[in-house]
């Protein structure tokens, strides 16, 4: 499932519900083989309190605003989910991505994947976050004491996605 929203979300409550829903939906298929979940992998992206990674270039971050392309965002995220389900045998997928203004420590994105074993759960979680970093139409604007700055795309993100194009699951 894909959710694109401005509202903050409760990371613990979402993951807890995801684990329970997976379990019960597994049960509701009447004990069919493989309905049950052995592993859930999740990734949470949070707003950091600074930009830059070293003491020299660090600047405090007051807030982050995410702009997105309504319509295309949902479409791309649904495709990314479908691609993950095509590559791995997944019991359930949840992606929540926020847009709008958010402050340090607030969650930006949540990816959850459930599978019979840990391999598919962990790999598909990494795949989903790598892909949405380069395929979902969001743009980050950082508020710092110097003013607002659009974040530049990182080559390493593009490389992380490219990796998945070479190697099928």
């Amino acid at each position, binding site marked *: 499932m894909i959710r694109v929203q401005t509202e903050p979300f409760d990371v613990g409550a979402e993951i807890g519900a995801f684990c329970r829903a997976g379990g019960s939906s597994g049960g509701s298929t009447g004990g069919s083989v493989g309905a049950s979940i052995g592993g859930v992998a999740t990734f949470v*992206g949070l707003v950091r309190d600074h930009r830059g990674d070293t003491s020299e270039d660090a600047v405090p971050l007051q807030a982050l605003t*995410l*702009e*997105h*392309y309504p*319509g*295309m965002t949902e*479409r791309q995220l649904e495709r990314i989910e479908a691609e993950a389900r095509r590559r791995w045998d997944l019991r359930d997928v949840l992606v929540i*991505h926020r847009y709008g203004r958010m402050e340090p420590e607030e969650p*930006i*994105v949540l990816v959850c994947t459930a599978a019979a074993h840990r391999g598919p759960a962990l790999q598909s979680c990494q795949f989903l*976050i790598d892909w*949405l*970093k*380069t*395929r*979902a*139409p*969001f*743009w*980050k*604007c950082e508020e710092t004491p110097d003013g607002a700055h*659009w*974040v*530049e*795309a*990182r080559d390493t*993100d*593009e490389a992380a996605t490219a990796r998945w194009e070479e190697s099928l699951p």
Partner: protein
Amino acid sequence: MKVLYFAWLRDRVGTGEETIERPADVATVGDLMAWLAGRSEGHARAFADPALVRCAVDQDFAGLDAALDGAAEVAFFPPVTGG
């Protein structure tokens, strides 16, 4: 045809959306970028370095060579930075 701008392209163009009449000789995304760049100083600055600009035609990523026949909505934006 509807043209959308996001992030710093929107800032430079000065609007997030405009409706244009596409001239007959503007056949591809690349043609459209060149044509739009001539509309105002802001447009010119937005498209000053085409290598920094990405495009979607009817909400799908599209390259410079993509044809615009039948397109209802074209969007220009920098490389995405979500997640």
